């Protein structure tokens, strides 16, 4: 039973991340997920200090708030003239460092250590269950991540055309009256919520990996946005299941194995994809050369 819960949690993380990750990859903002997953630390600590509990809801709100601040700061610094990758680097390392100071100053005697907040362990999920009265509702993480997934699916489902157009052609979107900035921040909020809901229980490596690797793999396999999102979810779920069994076999880190499996699938897609595949392109080039050589010059 605990096997199943771990795989289900991994698949939920992969699905939630895979959906919002597609838009991050297409907007050339893949590293934003990485930035948010680190910079939310001060948000989590502040939420903890204010609420005095490790209740997930407060943590989630605090983290989501800081996630948005991160995105705003990155944009502000980028607009004042610094390259966007450098602005991302400056903002998230600074916020992460502030978070570390907060942790070391205020929470010395309390049970809130870095490993537990930022690098949760997916293997412990089945034992941290949600109790409703005397009823066992299953692991807490499944509920948290499931809700985040539901939120993403609902919002992106309702506003699919807006998310698509603002990602593809923001100038045109603005011209036809779609509030481009609103959907940008809505997407960033979804990324923050997804990231925070996931990594508290499964670890940052799994979240950051699932935000980028399955969408990037799906991007190589299709020319349609809708299909890209579906492939991304499917690839994420396969990685989660196959990664779990690989981890059992090797007696290794579960999150690490899941992301490595996703990486392996990416390499396969990179080599064999029908459109972007390296091998196919090589073969086509050789065919063209062979055809040209076979035809006698006039």
């Amino acid at each position, binding site marked *: 039973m605990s096997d199943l819960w771990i795989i289900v949690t991994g698949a939920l993380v992969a699905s939630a991340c895979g959906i919002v990750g597609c838009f991050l990859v*297409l907007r050339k903002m893949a590293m934003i997920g990485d930035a948010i997953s680190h910079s939310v630390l001060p948000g989590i600590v502040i939420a903890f200090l204010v609420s005095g509990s490790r209740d997930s809801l407060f943590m989630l709100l605090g983290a989501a708030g800081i996630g948005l601040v991160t995105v705003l700061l990155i944009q502000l610094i980028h607009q004042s003239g610094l390259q966007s990758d450098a602005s991302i680097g400056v903002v998230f390392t600074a916020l992460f460092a502030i978070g570390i100071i907060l942790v070391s100053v205020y929470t010395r005697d309390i049970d809130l250590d870095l490993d537990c907040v930022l690098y949760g362990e997916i293997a412990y999920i089945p034992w941290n269950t949600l109790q409703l009265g005397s009823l066992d509702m299953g692991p807490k993480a499944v509920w948290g991540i499931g809700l985040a997934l539901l939120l993403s699916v609902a919002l992106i489902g*309702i*506003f*699919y*055309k*807006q998310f*698509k*157009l603002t*990602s*593809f*052609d923001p*100038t*045109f*979107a*603005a*011209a*036809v*009256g*779609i509030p481009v900035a609103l959907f940008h921040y809505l997407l960033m909020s979804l990324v923050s919520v997804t990231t925070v809901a996931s990594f508290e229980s499964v670890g940052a490596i799994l979240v950051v990996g699932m935000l980028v690797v399955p969408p990037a793999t799906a*991007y190589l396999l*299709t*020319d*349609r*946005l809708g*299909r*890209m999102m579906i492939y991304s979810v499917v690839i994420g779920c396969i990685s989660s299941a196959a990664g779990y069994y690989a981890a059992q076999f090797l007696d290794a880190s579960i999150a690490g194995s899941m992301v490595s499996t996703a990486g392996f699938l990416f390499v396969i897609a990179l080599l064999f994809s029908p459109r972007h595949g390296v091998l196919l392109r090589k073969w086509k080039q050789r065919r063209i050369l062979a055809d040209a050589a076979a035809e006698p010059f006039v």
Partner: protein
Amino acid sequence: MNHSPLEIRGLSAAYQKKPVLRDISFTAPEGSLIGIIGPNGAGKSTLIKAVLGLIPRLSGDVTIYGKPYAQQRKIIGYVPQRESIDWDFPTSALDVVMMGRYGHLGWFRRPGGQERRMAMECLAKVGMSDYAGRQISQLSGGQQQRVFLARALAQDASLYFMDEPFVGVDAATEKAIITLLNELKQQGKTVLVVHHDLNTVKEYFDWVVLLNVQLVASGSVDSTFTADNLQRTYGGRLAILERDAHSELINQT
């Protein structure tokens, strides 16, 4: 009720504090093809973006058929510059054309069969029906431009803004586009086109706006597109050869 399709009064705009448009005023006549002409950095694209509210205005008023832009979005069509498009985006030609209907659908309605039919009609008008399912990076430059023109047609507008639609297209596509623009004109629609090639101005347009940060002149091609005005627009960077009452222009730089 007889409002002009586009009336601009005292428009100024800036990119990051550097003014790129200063005190522009003109009134565009309905049912005409209007060329926006000027050297690089004259603010031609900026003029369109300022009118469409894509960059903030410093001052001035813009009215479209007598009303502000925000109320008239549904009767405006727009073809952005080619460089602003992400050609590797996973989307097909038909999909792009359907995006022309998104503004009309409002917040919640989804594009459906009706939008698809309309998009196919627009693709047919630009001769691109056979390429509806192609991913956009697999089209040639001319074909890509036709798709984006079809998207503007799908907007079913009365006033069109086109930012350099003739850049990077072959001669056949240029002819096809200009034929289409003339059809729009026949239907009483007004089209503003940012244009580079001075040799074709007299052939393509009825009306011109000569721009170099400030408005140099605006009016009918016959009265406004003169050697004197062009010298003022391009600041003496053009050599003008008078030959048989026609003036041919050669860019010196």
